[in-house]
């Protein structure tokens, strides 16, 4: 995973969201304002998630990795979010299976092949119980960022 796709300004801790759409709406405002995505991003990501859900059934906590086509992305990013209350999120390739998701990483991929390693690194680290515990307990975005930057397998 490329560290330069992680931006502290995109980290949200204890974010309030009633459901997936509410989550996307709130995050899109921020991503649009900061110049990471185009206006078409919100509709695209909502639509895609509804059709092809992205919750990964990993342990200890299920994690969602919503993303959409590159055409809606201006600047590649990963937006790490920790929700205040878990949101029901459907499982990837098992649309009827729901998970209570607290950790979401929006992937703003621009179509290069860098994200290939990135996803593998992310998913492997999501299964690190100690890391997930630390992420759960982190108090500030700075702390959260630090934890993500020392994930195993993270390259320049």
């Amino acid at each position, binding site marked *: 995973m490329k560290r330069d796709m992680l931006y502290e300004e995109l980290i949200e801790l204890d974010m309030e969201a009633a459901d997936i759409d509410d989550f996307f709406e709130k995050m899109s405002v921020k991503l649009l304002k900061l110049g990471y995505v185009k206006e078409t991003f919100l509709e695209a990501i909502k639509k*895609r998630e509804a*059709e*092809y859900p992205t919750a*990964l*059934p*990993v*342990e200890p906590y299920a994690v969602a*990795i919503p*993303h*959409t*086509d*590159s055409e809606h992305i201006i600047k590649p990013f990963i937006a790490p979010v920790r929700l205040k209350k878990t949101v029901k999120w459907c499982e*990837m*390739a*098992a*649309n009827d299976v729901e998970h209570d998701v607290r950790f979401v990483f929006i*992937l703003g*991929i621009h*179509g290069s*092949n860098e*994200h*290939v*390693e990135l*996803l*593998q690194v992310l*998913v*492997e680290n999501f*299964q690190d119980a100690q890391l997930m515990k630390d992420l759960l307990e982190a108090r500030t975005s700075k702390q959260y960022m630090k934890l993500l930057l020392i994930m195993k397998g993270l390259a320049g």
Partner: protein
Amino acid sequence: MKKIIVACGSGVATSQTVASKVNRLLKENKVDANVEVIDLKSVDRHIASSAAYIAITKTKKEYPIPVINGIAFLTGIGQDVELKKLIEACK
């Protein structure tokens, strides 16, 4: 060389990651097959010429070739079982 296809919702993230990982695993196991990332819409067209289809989305229909659970390769959970199935399909 056997062909294996993989497709996901948008083709930018999960299918590429799974293809990369599976190609590496196949090589390690000395299986003469290659995983190709294709568009979800193109799946039907490739079925006839493929040994297996690695699905990362919910499959709504039956296929004449083995359908492998792609999420297992993404998360690593249940990967060994799916890899075995894949290797069998390539024989």
